[in-house]
């Protein structure tokens, strides 16, 4: 039997001005029929380009691409009528309703009218969109859009389904549901699925994984094959005396530690070799370490593989700028019965919490839970409908301009001036924060040094790789040494390496007394927070430390659930109550 996709010696480059960018280089792989293959790689690895080549949307430079036995370059139209493809933004018409989007794709894919009722019913049931058929796609939450996009791709079950980052910016519940739908389809119709993702935990759900980096295939195999190589090198290190954050900070600076990641009450470590005695010895004897071996997962393999590619060296040099205040328990942010209405729709209702100085405080929730609305009110970007809030003693919306001097802000999507260079952006924001002349120069030098932006000084901000964009945004938010930092989904769409880097920096800031308020989709990141609230449909579902959250969801078994499991549990609990 032939393979549904066969790619041999594929190379593809783009012209960008005078430069030529090698997007794919000598790529070879085959997909096996009837299984889910994950295409995994950091941003800019060439995942989307590869997807588009498979759909016949890009001509190629060299090599051969066979899709369902057809040549994707010369028989592009044939290929396009046989495969289903969901692009990154789902390809939905936002001004059409759910039903109308489905009708369109049913028409385009030639689904017979008499078969539609049954097909729609199945799909709507599968995706849980049945109650929303009349709603405009633009008004759906990210998770629902993604499911509708998938439904549109599945109106006529294809032989080959291509999904380009279907789970970006989507909450865990929706992600889990998407996977269920995909697997059900694979079982029922035996279709082949290629799915690109930046979520490494999703790799484990794939039968096979292709790891792409800088346009090259680094490895292909089952997730187990990847993680096997790290057998005996992964550990959980805990300590009574040190907070996980302090422990991680110390561990990540060691040369024999490949990766250190906060997990539950300890730190998950990948060591360079199979023995950990040297790590234990490096801590003073007064500190007791509890080291236990854990089974390696795909993420471990991914990180260690990419670090071997010489990619990356975290430099947490955001040296502290202010003295840690004595009054550590001072309340910095206070939110009291906050409410926000948009017409009849209540986006945020009765939300209350407090944040203390030096805390990392997380705001977790599904799409449309009201996180961003709460966030925007805190930053003074949106007036409140009812309730009260204070940030450093004032409501930023009505406060004197100087009050905003204390606050740093990093928006959800990259929001610096795209066609200004890195240095121009830094200069502008330094001025906006009232830093001029010597002080300005000093801070800009600091930013470039601490965030390793030196190579990109003159590059336009929009042309930076995503990880660097995020660094630049972070640098801008820290330009004026704020006491409080607002980070709105800072790691959305960013690859695992850049996320680690980002959290290393944030941890360091928090350790030095900066208060951090952060929203995130990544449940594992909740572990970095001192305390957090989980929001759902505009209200606070639960509030407390990560451990408390997990304990809420803990069943009879001894094993503590992961944050993601806890989150899904809490959301479902609420669903049952409501």
């Amino acid at each position: 039997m032939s393979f549904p996709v066969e790619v041999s010696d594929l190379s593809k480059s783009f012209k960008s001005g005078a430069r030529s960018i090698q997007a794919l280089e000598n790529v070879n792989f085959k997909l096996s029929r009837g299984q889910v293959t994950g295409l995994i790689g950091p941003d800019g690895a060439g995942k989307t380009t590869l997807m588009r080549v498979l759909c016949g949307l890009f001509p190629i430079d060299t090599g051969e691409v066979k899709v369902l036995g057809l040549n994707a370059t010369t028989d592009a139209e044939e290929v396009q009528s046989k495969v289903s493809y969901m692009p990154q933004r789902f390809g939905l018409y936002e001004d059409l309703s759910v039903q109308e989007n489905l009708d369109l794709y049913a028409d385009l894919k030639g689904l017979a009218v008499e078969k539609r009722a049954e097909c729609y019913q199945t799909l709507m049931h599968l995706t849980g969109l049945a109650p929303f058929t009349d709603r405009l796609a633009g008004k759906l939450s990210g998770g629902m859009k993604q499911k509708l996009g998938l439904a549109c791709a599945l109106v006529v079950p294809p032989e080959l389904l291509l999904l380009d980052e279907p789970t970006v910016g989507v909450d865990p519940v929706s992600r889990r549901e998407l996977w269920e739908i995909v697997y059900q389809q694979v079982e029922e119709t035996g279709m082949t699925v290629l799915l690109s993702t930046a979520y490494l935990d999703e790799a484990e759900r794939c039968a096979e994984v292709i790891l792409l980096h800088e346009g090259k295939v680094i490895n292909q195999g089952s997730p187990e094959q990847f993680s096997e190589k790290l057998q005996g090198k992964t550990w959980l290190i805990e300590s009574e005396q040190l907070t996980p954050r302090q422990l991680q900070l110390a561990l990540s600076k060691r040369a024999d530690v490949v990766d250190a990641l906060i997990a539950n009450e300890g730190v998950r470590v990948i060591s360079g070799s199979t023995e950990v005695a040297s790590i234990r010895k490096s801590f003073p004897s007064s500190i007791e370490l509890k080291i236990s071996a854990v089974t390696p997962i795909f993420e471990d393999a991914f990180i260690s593989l990419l670090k071997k590619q010489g990619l990356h060296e975290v430099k947490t040099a955001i040296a502290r700028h202010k003295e840690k205040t004595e009054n550590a328990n001072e309340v910095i942010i206070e939110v009291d019965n906050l409410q926000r209405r948009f017409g009849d729709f209540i986006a945020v209702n009765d939300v209350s919490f407090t944040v203390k100085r030096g805390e990392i405080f997380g705001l977790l929730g599904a799409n449309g839970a009201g996180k961003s609305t709460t966030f925007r009110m805190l930053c003074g970007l949106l007036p409140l409908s009812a309730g009260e809030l204070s940030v450093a003693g004032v409501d930023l919306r009505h406060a004197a301009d100087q009050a905003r001097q204390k606050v740093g802000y990093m928006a959800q999507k990259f929001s610096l001036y795209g066609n200004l260079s890195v240095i121009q952006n830094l200069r502008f924001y330094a001025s906006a924060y009232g830093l001029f002349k010597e002080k300005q120069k000093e801070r800009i030098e600091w930013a470039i040094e601490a965030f390793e932006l030196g190579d990109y000084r003159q590059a336009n901000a929009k042309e930076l790789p995503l990880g660097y964009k995020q660094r630049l945004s972070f640098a801008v938010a820290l330009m004026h040494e704020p006491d409080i930092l607002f980070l709105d989904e800072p790691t959305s769409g960013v690859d695992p390496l850049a996320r680690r880097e980002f959290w290393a920096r944030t941890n360091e800031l928090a350790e030095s007394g900066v208060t951090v308020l952060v929203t995130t989709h990544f449940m594992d990141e909740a572990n970095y927070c001192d305390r957090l609230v989980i929001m759902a449909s505009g209200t606070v579902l639960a509030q407390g430390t990560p451990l408390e959250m997990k304990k809420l969801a803990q069943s009879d078994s001894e094993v503590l659930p992961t944050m993601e499991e806890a989150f899904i549990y809490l959301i479902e609990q609420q669903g049952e109550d409501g």
Partner: protein
Amino acid sequence: MIDAARYQRLSGLIRKESLQIMRDPSSIAIAFVLPVVLLFLFGYGVSLDARNIPIGIVVEQPDAATQSLTGSFEQSDYFSPFYFQTIQQAEKALEKHKIDGIVWLKNDFARALFSKHDAVIAVRVNGVNSNQANLTLGYIRGTWLSWITHYAEAKGTELNMPIQLEHRVWFNPAVSSRLFLVPGVVAIIMTLIGTLLTALVVAREWDRGTMEALFVTPLRNVEFIAGKLIPYFILGMASLFLNFFLAIWLFKVPFEGSFWLLLLTGSLYMLVSLAVGLLISVMAKNQFVAGQIAIITGFLPAFILSGFIFDINSMPPAIQFITHIVPARYYVAILQTLFLAGDVWPVILANVAALLIMLVIFTRLVAKKTRKSLE
């Protein structure tokens, strides 16, 4: 079977496009609000016909003859005269834009008339708006000539004019500029809908990433183009009906031609405009740039280079050459003929032929450029 699938794809696409048109306020604005605004502005606001031109009259020595002459200025629809004692006062008024011209009857006007004495009438106009000034001069001369003829007759003096000029303005005997401006505006509105709106909506598909999803379906190029053309074609024709109705009913523009020809040529022009719009959008792939290009290559030439207001024959040769690739040029000629002159076959056939050639060229270009590829 294959045809059924093709029909299904096409109708699905058309339904989707129609729903989008109905839900997008900016489509409605461009298709229905803008035309009405433009028609009203041109129908009511813009006029090249001078009426009640304020002129100053200075009579240095009034008598029966001067009174008779100034009387004919007062009776004329073209003028509203103001009297001044001295030329200096009148010139002050001209400087301050209170009046647009001066008729100055010097010295002893009546005595000098028909004698070999010096000039007796001096005319001053503000030449800043040269078109207006030319018209004013023409009207003053005309008023003078008809007065002197009557005056001479009344006095029994032989006033011999070797050449007697008569004129008749065909198609627009009342010489009302509205009658040719309104059909011209109809052509501009159709250009706006066909080119600007289409350029924007197709570019929007690129911007929002839906094009990518459309491409990876059994949809063929031709179907995609047809699916875009048909709804906007219908929209454009609906707007044509609205404009036609307003032109006839509100602005009382006569319609001498036949309706089916209007329909036929309108459809042809709509197709050409749509093809231009599609061409712009497949090349720009970005709403902002597409909008700019549509305005610069579609709207502006339709206004200036179509012969709508400005005479093409008087433009420099290089620019006359450019007007040949402005489709609006041919349609303005057709519309002005159909409205005011009737079914003049040579005019219509020549312009229809030109439009057909442009249609073929543009659709071929569109088909070539709309490869199902993202590069």
